């Protein structure tokens, strides 16, 4: 799991360029040129430019148009993409990327180290808050020569190499952005990247059409002629489209969990839930610690015990995803399986609530709190209803509020809730994706910060230790300690390690080949 620097170097040197194709060859399937892949995009993305917008649909479609320097396998080891190989200096400060030769943008201009430096040091620093947080640590970025880019950090930052996926830092053409307002540049609405597919047409509300880029840097690839993403807002229509063969691939939230068992049963379809390891989405119930009695650790522990997380994984999500064990997704680096949050136990839960001085009244109600359901589809509505009945069993009255996405985002960011549901990507490393939800320095009136308002100096200290150390052993120790501490404190009610089904026609090959799954560039995907 933990990757050492030497291991990285070895992986980089050994990773053969056409490994995935050879895998297919080994199975006796010859890659075949031609054919159009019909898929679905939902919801319709506002723009297709990765970086300017980082919503899932943008990343999925944009991931075919753009590429990053690296990609990652399911164990989060980096693999070459636009970077052919890379070196990390012994002090952990210098990162040197050697780029592929003959890479061209869709407008015919060559991609050079200048574009890489521009993308990292300027473009993503400006448009992407997530990249900004990490790239601010770069002291200097220089193009050593047209195919070599070097970054020097101001202090060692062990998870730095995880930041070069297309979904975080796609390489964009400097000549189309430099000197302009990046968000308003014409290239935002007509994206130009280095990916195997170029943007051709977008009929809003209808479809997005990408076509094969003839000058793609891997000879003979991509195999597909075109990819068409159709906009289908209704989940049952999406399912029908897949069943009737009108589309050959669905991903992300396209197919509702309750439809997946029947998709699995169809002989012509393949259902995969792998390919989300790089993101590590973890779902939890957010407690607002400013609302009594949620500030009481006994109450939070009692509520944790009142919920059967197996039921949620099996009955609500139909086995897509796993019950959460604590604050870390099990695919996230430094996950410690020995730190487990309190198990489902209704009687213990009641005792703990009694001990907290919350006795039931005449109607058997100890206290009433509100719950703002997450407006991300039906399954989350069912989750709210399930939580209400679960809490009801221990005498806690949960009043559901149903809100739209706008209201949810606004109120969650403004701390205007008692409880709600949220899920966050952990991006493979606790420093990148876990820390932000627990440290007191990140208690901000902004979504995806520590909106719960949880504050514990010990937790702050451990996360800082883990962040600042370049030694994976030191980091492991700090993160193990913080996991053990957090499961005792139960600042949030962790529910589910999420995954999303990628469902496709069995004729389609090489769909999920990395830890970022469906976001890959698809240069090796073909229709057998």
């Amino acid at each position, binding site marked *: 799991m933990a990757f050492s620097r030497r291991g990285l170097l070895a992986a980089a040197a050994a990773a053969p360029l056409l490994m995935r194709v050879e895998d297919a060859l080994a199975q006796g399937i010859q890659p075949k040129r031609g054919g159009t892949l019909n898929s679905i995009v939902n919801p319709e993305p506002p723009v297709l430019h990765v970086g300017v917008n980082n919503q899932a649909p943008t990343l999925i479609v944009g991931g075919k148009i753009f590429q990053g320097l690296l990609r990652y396998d399911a164990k989060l080891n980096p693999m070459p993409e636009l970077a052919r190989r890379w070196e990390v200096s012994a002090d952990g400060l210098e990162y040197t990327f050697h780029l592929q030769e003959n890479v061209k943008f869709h407008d015919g201009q060559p991609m050079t180290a200048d574009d890489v430096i521009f993308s990292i040091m300027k473009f993503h620093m400006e448009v992407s808050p997530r990249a900004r947080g990490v790239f601010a640590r770069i002291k200097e970025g220089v193009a050593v020569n047209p195919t070599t880019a070097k970054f020097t950090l101001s202090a060692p930052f062990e998870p730095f190499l995880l930041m070069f996926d297309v979904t975080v830092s796609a390489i964009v053409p400097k000549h189309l952005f430099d000197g302009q307002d990046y968000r308003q540049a014409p290239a935002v609405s007509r994206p130009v990247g280095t990916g195997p597919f170029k943007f051709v047409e977008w009929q809003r509300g209808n479809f997005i059409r990408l076509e094969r880029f003839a000058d793609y840097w891997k000879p003979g690839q991509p195999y597909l002629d075109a990819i068409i993403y159709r906009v289908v807002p209704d989940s049952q229509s999406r399912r029908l489209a897949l069943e009737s063969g009108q589309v050959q691939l669905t991903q992300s939230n396209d197919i509702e969990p309750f439809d997946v068992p029947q998709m699995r049963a169809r002989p012509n379809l393949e259902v995969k839930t792998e390919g989300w390891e790089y993101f590590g989405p973890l779902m939890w119930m957010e407690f607002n610690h400013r609302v009594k009695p949620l500030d009481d650790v006994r109450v939070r522990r009692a509520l944790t015990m009142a919920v059967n997380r197996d039921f949620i994984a099996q009955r609500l999500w139909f086995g897509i995803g796993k019950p959460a064990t604590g604050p870390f997704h099990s695919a996230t680096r430094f996950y410690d399986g020995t730190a487990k949050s309190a198990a489902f136990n209704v009687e213990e839960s009641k005792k703990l609530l009694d001990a907290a001085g919350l006795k039931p009244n005449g109607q058997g109600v100890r206290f009433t709190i509100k719950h703002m359901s997450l407006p991300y589809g039906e399954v989350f509505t069912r989750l709210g209803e399930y939580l209400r009945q679960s809490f009801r069993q221990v005498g806690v009255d949960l009043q559901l509020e149903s*809100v*739209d996405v706008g209201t949810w985002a606004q109120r969650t960011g403004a701390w205007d809730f008692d409880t709600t549901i949220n899920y966050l990507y952990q991006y493979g490393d606790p420093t990148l994706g876990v820390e932000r939800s627990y440290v007191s320095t990140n208690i901000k009136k902004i979504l995806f910060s520590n909106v719960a308002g949880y504050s514990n100096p010990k937790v702050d200290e451990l996360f800082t230790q883990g962040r600042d150390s370049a030694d994976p052993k030191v980091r492991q120790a700090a993160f193990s300690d913080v996991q053990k501490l957090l499961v005792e404190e139960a600042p949030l009610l962790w529910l589910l390690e999420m995954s999303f089904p990628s469902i496709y026609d069995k004729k389609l090959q090489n769909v999920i080949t990395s830890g970022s799954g469906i976001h890959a560039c698809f240069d090796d995907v073909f229709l057998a």
Partner: protein
Amino acid sequence: MKDFWRNFSRNRGAVVGLVVLVAVLILAVLAPVLYPGSPWDMAGMPFAPPGEEGMLLGTDSLGRDVAAGIAHGARVSLLVGAVSTVAALAIGVSLGAIAGYLGGLVDDLVMRFTEFFQTIPSFVLAILLVAIFTPSIASIVFAIAVVSWPPVARVVRAEFLSLRSREFVQASEVLGKSRLSIVVGDILPNALSPIVVLSSLMVASAILLESALSFLGLGDPNMMSWGFLIGSGRSVIRMAWWMSVFPGIAIFLTVLSLNLVGEGLSDALNPRLARNRGGKP
């Protein structure tokens, strides 16, 4: 009164409608007795088909009893229908009466106001209102009332417009009766029959509107209503048809019966027409 019943019962459809409607009302009243406890409780296996697990109409995706949901849902659906209709009538009748009786500039202003409301597609407005005030029983009733009153105002205005020039109104005016007492005492009773007929249809369309809002995920999350049941069953319709079929039938029967009763009322309140028509909407 006797005449009323005789005329009403002459329309067989109306009688059937009334029987169904009364049955639905009884179901709503007896729901806590028939299905004690919360309709949200998980009572059995998820997705049990009708008849299995002792569930008359099957269970839903969380193992909740569909029959219990329909019984408890009758309370909410009827309540939403009735309350929002009363509210819409209050707005529509007063505005329509003012416009129709006073005429002239006032009429023009009120009609522009009505037109204004009719110009925004009502369903879009309803969605907007429910979203702004967050989905709850109150915001749903409010939204339905706000989008439902314009037809009432138009009908009432038209009635008043034609009635105010009749002899009996002019007679009252000559007698020096106050405007209010003329409006309430003389004209309104004569304009009552189209209002009564219209209101039965409005209850029906309010129930439909609520189900459509729930279908789009804008229902009250704490209230078991038929709209909610269909909304939650729709996505699993091919796995568990019973989840949306039975609440759908409940809505259909109730809306149908309200329409039939509306026809019966129309016949009974307007016997001259009824004889010629043999029952009309």
